[in-house]
């Protein structure tokens, strides 16, 4: 097992670390699927209001890739179809019949039968099972195009973004599914790299013996893009794919059971949650049903996913396709006078400009306050200090602002894994993250991906 020391990582020490307890939730009547929350998706709807669906019925597919279908996580009837701006498909609300009748998608596979499949067949099965979008194709970080199989697949078992499910919880009792999933991945490409955090709490030896790399460092050392950056030997590996361990387990489950794996382990966390912990939920579970976990109901920010890369969500939304966490944060904070002349023992910060640098605190409570106004870049040099792929966000930003795309690409812009940590530290509060996202989309469009 090789060991990779990831440079420039940072531990946010965000409060509300989830408990290792993994509870189940009460069933509710209405579940939902939110196509708008799957990035880059142009959804084509396949169901009508009032139509009966089973677990695994096709709800919609991606217009760019018709094989990339998305399946219903519950059985029942389609209650309502909600549209957003410009008639973009927002939510499909399904009234559950609480039976969870599963539609058989294909014959059950075993480890041995997966072994006999061709690479294209495995890809076909995963697409039929609606799990194609769990893959991230680098360098554009999009759902892969099905025709091209990758040079390598990077599986990252742990996730160190605050806060996502811990590996020892979601791997509990799932080792066979993981191995089946891994087998399927190995069919699709020649090399599968499996990385595990240096401080992992995972004890499952059957899984650990497939691990090829240990990743040392804080966030985002366990991001599969970072893993790819440190492990690649030449430029041919740039178009590798990444996938998280829980998705590997779901792929395994899909193949061995032949039905859509609608259950997953999520984390409910954040400063406003009474008891941050893991929950086993069915995909599409309404966030509203988690309201009883909260200490207060007004002035909150709901984040679907980790606090750095997650999308902004609302209390009326649902646990969506690629989301493994729900955070409830305090929206904004009380204004105080002369913040910048205060000693600031209570202010979490990356550098040493507040006296909080002297405080050895385990965790910091954070809110969504911007903590400053938008300013021009003052070249303070904080962002390169936290960039895990050793690039220079401030130069990329300046070049991109001037309309130059070539220069950032030459300097490694496409290695960016959009971990968001540069945006977190920026004292000028520049939205580097969204600037880079837009630029990447533009490059992808020009490259015809």
């Amino acid at each position, binding site marked *: 097992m090789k060991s990779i020391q990831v440079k420039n990582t940072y531990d946010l020490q965000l409060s509300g670390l989830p408990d290792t307890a993994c509870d189940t939730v009460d069933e509710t009547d209405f579940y939902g699927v939110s196509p708008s929350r799957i990035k880059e998706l142009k959804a084509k709807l396949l169901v009508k209001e009032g139509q009966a669906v089973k677990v695994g019925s096709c709800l919609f597919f991606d217009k760019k890739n018709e094989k990339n279908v998305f399946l219903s996580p519950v059985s029942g009837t389609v209650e309502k179809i909600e549209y957003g701006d410009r008639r973009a498909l927002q939510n499909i609300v399904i009234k559950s019949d609480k039976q969870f009748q599963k539609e058989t998608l294909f014959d059950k596979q075993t480890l041995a039968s997966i072994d006999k499949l061709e690479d294209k067949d495995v890809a076909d099965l995963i697409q039929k099972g609606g799990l194609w979008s769990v893959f991230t194709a680098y360098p554009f970080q999009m759902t892969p195009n099905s025709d091209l199989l990758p040079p390598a697949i990077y599986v990252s078992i742990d996730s160190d973004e605050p806060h996502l499910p811990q590996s020892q919880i979601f791997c509990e009792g799932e080792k066979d599914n993981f191995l089946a999933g891994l087998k399927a991945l190995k069919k699709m490409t020649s090399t599968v790299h499996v990385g595990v955090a240096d401080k992992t709490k995972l004890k499952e030896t059957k899984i650990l013996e497939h691990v090829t790399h240990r990743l040392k460092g804080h966030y985002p050392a366990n991001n599969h893009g970072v893993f790819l950056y440190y492990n690649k030997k030449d430029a041919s590996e740039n178009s590798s794919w990444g996938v998280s361990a829980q998705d590997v387990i779901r792929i395994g489950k899909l193949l061995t059971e032949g039905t859509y794996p609608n259950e997953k382990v999520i984390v409910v966390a954040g400063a406003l949650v009474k008891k941050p912990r893991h929950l086993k939920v069915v995909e599409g579970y309404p966030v509203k049903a988690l309201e009883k976990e909260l200490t207060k109901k007004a002035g909150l920010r709901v*984040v679907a996913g980790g*606090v750095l890369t*997650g999308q902004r969500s609302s209390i009326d939304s649902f646990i969506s396709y690629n989301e493994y966490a729900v955070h409830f944060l305090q929206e904004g904070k009380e204004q105080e006078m002369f913040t*910048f002349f205060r000693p600031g023992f209570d202010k979490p910060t990356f550098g040493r400009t507040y006296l909080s640098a002297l405080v050895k605190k385990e965790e910091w409570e954070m809110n969504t306050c911007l*903590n400053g106004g938008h300013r021009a870049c*003052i070249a303070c040099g904080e962002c390169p200090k936290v960039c895990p792929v050793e690039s*220079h966000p401030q*130069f990329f930003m300046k070049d991109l602002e001037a309309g130059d795309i070539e220069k950032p690409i030459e300097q490694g812009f496409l290695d960016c894994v959009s971990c968001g940590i540069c945006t977190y530290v920026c004292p000028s509060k520049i939205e580097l993250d969204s600037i880079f996202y837009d630029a990447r989309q533009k490059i992808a469009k020009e490259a015809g991906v």
Partner: protein
Amino acid sequence: MKILKDIFNKNEHYFEKGGKYANWYPMYEAFYSFLFSTKETTKTSVHVRDSLDTKRYMSIVLIALTPCALFGIFNAGFQAHKAVGESLDLIPVLLTGAQLVLPLIAVSYIVGLGVEFFSCMVRGHEVNEGFLVTGLLYPLTLPATMPLWQAAVGIAFGVVVGKEVFGGSGRNFLNPALTARAFVFFAYPAQMSGEVWTKVMGAKDQIVEGWSGATALAVAATTEAPQKAVDALQDAGFSLMDSIVGIVPGSIGETSVVMVLIGAFILLITGVGSWRTMLGSLLGAVSISILFNLFSGGTTIAFFGLPTVWQLSIGSYAFATVFMATDPVSSPGLESSRFIYGFLIGVLGMIIRVTNPAYPEGWMLAILLMNVFAPLIDHVMLERKSKKRIPNVI
């Protein structure tokens, strides 16, 4: 406090887009955010943010500058009293010093902020905190005798040409405080060089016998071999200790190495000032002054032979290195190029100081010159770095 906040919040709609005084928004934002922390929240991903903002960043520099400013007030008064033989007690000295220095600082802030506010209103972007630093740095580089109107012309020029023509703080490539100083230095040479460092209060005949307003630099630069520069300095009444403590004539803030070191300590411990720039500058200055010492035998300029310790403690070397060279906006952006940048500043500044009799001090010109070259250093270093990467291009 609550009342004040309510007043601000109640009147916000006037200044928002489409409001009655929307043009005045930068002014409103500047005052509001000066008094209270922002209530703005993140819009989309990266939902939490670091507590550091540019205000904090710049106020750290202000804190680091305070010892220099306070000592500058003391020294301006001290020199003025010494020249005419008045009492050297602390309180009268401080009062005289405050009379001399505070108007300069006030003029610098008022005129500079006026220009800054005006251009922000024209362009409609927020007032940047960078000016808080510029506004204090600039008067500290002036002699205490500087006429106020000249200081005002200088800072207005510095803010407009050094900064606003390029789009405001963060987009400028020259240090605005130094641009302002360079402008007054060339525009009003009579008020910026020669024996202008001490305010002579009263008539000429009151001047104490044997007193001269010349700086150590002027003495050292005019010394001719075979006399040693050190001896000349000591004859003129300069001791190494005085130069380090700072009770010598010179620009307001630059004289005291001790106070600058306190500021450097604050900048380094908070990580606001780049240690690479400072170390580079130190290495550059030391190596070139040692080199000069080695060649001092063959020249008539006694300044060549001045020991390194003296070179580092006289003039504005320490102040320029710690506060001017480390300005992040006009420095290169990469940490590795900051070392080269600092080193070249040290080398160039020392060369200009010692070999060019037309300029009494070299750091202002050296830093401005290196400001211009900073993007080039960055470019070279970035090229080198991207060659080491595994290419990721389409």
